[in-house]
């Protein structure tokens, strides 16, 4: 190795035989294989980018930005934004408003604008549509004309609500998602008690996910243990039973639970037959939280079993034997030697089940009833019914943040390198 030192450049870097630094030479020689590797993943990369990354970013963007007002009311939007929100509305603002209303009515977009403003203050929808109908006939001074059309225009709150709606980039939706109200003064105030639902729903979702994760662990751990200790033939059969739910449609499985759990269903019939309960007082096992918990635990169980099983299978049987030969009872050998070795699997399975259930939608929607609805059902509601996409995006963004925080916590506590998925 004497010639290695001879190949050192002036700055101490190793040089290749032709005098270029060794690191640069290495990069050069690896270039072709790197390019080939990149070429192999390129189609998928583009697909994921187009169908996943970009839509998600765009949707998250709608959570902080909504230009319904600014796009359809181009004259008044800048004036409203410039207004301080406390002084008397000016004639210029009123004039821009009336002209915009005439155009918006012609373009048939006034309805969208009206519902946008309505979200900031209820009751303004009819105010806007009514005023827009009359706008074409209004004459200056427009401020008075507006008030004549509807006396609500004299109320400064109407203008303040419009100011918020006119601001495209706004934290209002995130505030709403956390049960706060963003005012025209740029302050956050707590929502009225009766309208506070989101935070409670987030807590409920986290609580349900945690419970489902715990149930899956309690039910799945022994099964995984059995699977990893049975002879291959029997283990394969059991494995098929574990995987069977994967091959059945999620919808079919969930509806099967309806047949099982409903008050005239299989389980209740058995309970009545056994005399556990009377025919009149059947248990309500579905269309409530119980139904959501039972069905979600069943559906997510394989996600807990598989990572634990793969970790257990890799634990050499000699470890437990060694513990016993050293004097440990069966329980001590399990608890101090076997169980710690399965923690990476528990972590992976737990994280997987938790993250999957925190965004679970179909099952709670079908079997959850009123009481078993989770945050995802609310997001779907805002996407499909109320069409408040910005609020849906804000709720989704918070959900994503929760998952990322949990992931970070997991990494800090267990270490992501320890995670084994199989």
């Amino acid at each position: 190795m004497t010639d290695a030192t001879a190949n050192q450049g002036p700055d101490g870097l190793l040089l290749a035989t032709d005098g270029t630094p060794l690191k640069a030479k290495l990069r050069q020689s690896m270039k072709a294989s790197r390019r080939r590797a990149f070429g192999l993943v390129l189609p998928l990369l583009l697909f994921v980018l187009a169908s996943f990354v970009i839509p998600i970013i765009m949707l998250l963007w709608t959570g902080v930005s909504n230009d319904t007002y600014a796009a359809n009311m181009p004259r008044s939007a800048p004036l409203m934004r410039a207004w301080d929100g406390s002084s008397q509305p000016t004639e210029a603002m009123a004039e821009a408003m009336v002209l915009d209303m005439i155009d918006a009515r012609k373009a048939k977009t006034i309805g969208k604008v009206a519902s946008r403003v309505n979200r900031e203050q209820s009751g303004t929808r009819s105010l806007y549509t009514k005023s827009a109908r009359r706008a074409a006939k209004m004459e200056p001074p427009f401020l008075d004309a507006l008030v004549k059309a509807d006396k609500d225009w004299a109320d400064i709150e109407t203008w303040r609500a419009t100011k918020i709606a006119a601001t495209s980039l706004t934290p209002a939706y995130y505030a709403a998602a956390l049960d706060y109200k963003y005012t025209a003064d740029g302050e956050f105030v707590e929502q009225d008690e009766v309208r506070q639902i989101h935070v409670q729903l987030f807590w409920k979702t986290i609580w349900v996910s945690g419970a489902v994760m715990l149930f899956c662990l309690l039910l799945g751990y022994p099964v995984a243990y059995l699977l990893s200790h049975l002879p291959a033939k029997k283990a394969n059969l059991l494995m098929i039973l574990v995987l069977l739910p994967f091959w059945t449609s999620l919808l079919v499985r969930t509806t099967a639970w309806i047949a099982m759990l409903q008050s005239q269903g299989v389980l209740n019939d058995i309970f009545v037959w056994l005399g556990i309960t009377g025919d009149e007082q059947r248990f309500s096992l579905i269309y409530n939280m119980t139904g959501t918990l039972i069905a979600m635990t069943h559906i997510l169980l394989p996600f807990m079993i598989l990572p634990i099983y793969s970790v257990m299978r890799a634990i050499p049987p000699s470890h437990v034997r060694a513990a016993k030969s050293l004097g440990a009872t069966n329980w001590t050998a399990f608890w101090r030697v076997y169980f710690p070795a399965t923690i990476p699997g528990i972590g992976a399975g737990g994280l997987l089940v938790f993250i999957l259930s925190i965004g679970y939608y179909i099952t709670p929607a079908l079997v959850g009833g009123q009481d078993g609805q989770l945050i995802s059902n609310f997001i779907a509601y805002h996407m499909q019914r109320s069409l408040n996409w910005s609020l849906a995006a804000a709720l989704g963004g918070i959900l994503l943040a929760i998952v990322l925080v949990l992931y970070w916590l997991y990494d800090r506590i267990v270490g992501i390198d320890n995670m084994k998925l199989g």
Partner: protein
Amino acid sequence: MTESVTERPFVHFDGVQKSYDGETLVVKDLNLEIAPGEFVTMLGPSGSGKTTCLMMLAGFEAATSGEIYLKGEPINNVPPHKRNIGMVFQNYALFPHMTVAENLAFPLQVRKMRRKDVKDKVARALGMVQMDEFGSRKPAQLSGGQQQRVALARALVFEPQLILMDEPLGALDKQLREHMQYEIKHIHEQLGVTVVYVTHDQSEALTMSDRIAVFDDGVIQQLAPPAELYERPENAFVAQFIGENNRLPGKVTAIENGVARVALDNGPEVLALAINCGEVGNRTVLSIRPERVQVNHVTDANRLDGHVQELIYLGDHIRCRMQVCGNDDFIVKVPNSPEHAMLREGETCTVGWNTEDCRALDLAHGAM
């Protein structure tokens, strides 16, 4: 050591049998007595039942019939954790989530020993295997040889009187393996514990053991000290399994004073010790060690022609493959010394041996 066995065996296998499926026996009628302080090796090819025997002794497998005694007490119904037997596993079985010191403390903690005593004993055990500075490392941060030492220390730290070792050196490279053999041997002598050692490596067995039990097909083929096993194998399997061996098949024509006259296939009649060849008229296999074959300076009556096929230069000796009596695999080790003439490939020479170096054995295992 053999005398003390008759007094009171420390470990005693009494007619032990083991079957996993109820159809075939993995261990057939095992009878073995091990004296206190003895180092006994179970040697055999894989599948010969040696590891099963060890697992039965440790308590991880139950004997199908027969009884195992430890210090005179039957232990068939004693669970492994109450047997107080130290065990070193093939892949060390160190607990990966514990440090070296925690691994060593484990057997002491489960025995509810006081914290200070645990610390002292762990330190002493680490010192014994020269690993004092590694207490705070995790097993994954150690080399194979270091892990081996820790596994050994862990099996010794709670001072069991019996240590079982299941191919403990199998995963180490040759040099380290040889070094560890001496180290285990020294620790055994120093502590006076009884060791039952399982291996398929004969040189390991020869180096370390007081006695070696050669296993094949679930049966102990021969139980003897290393030298006797090599010098005086009792059957063709042992002769073939321990060390290098030349085999010449033939037929017994006469037996006189323990010496058999054997007519070799494709060759003349020669003399050999009648060990296990049966009666006159039986087929037999002659067994001669390569280093006991004489070339060109044949002193005894046993003379044969050898055609040199291949020569391999190995420094201190030359390994010569010859054709003798139609057997192409006849190996002769010729010492590299001035009094031995250099052989050349294609040459024909005379080979022979002293009658007491050649053993006429059974054919059962020798069927070629």
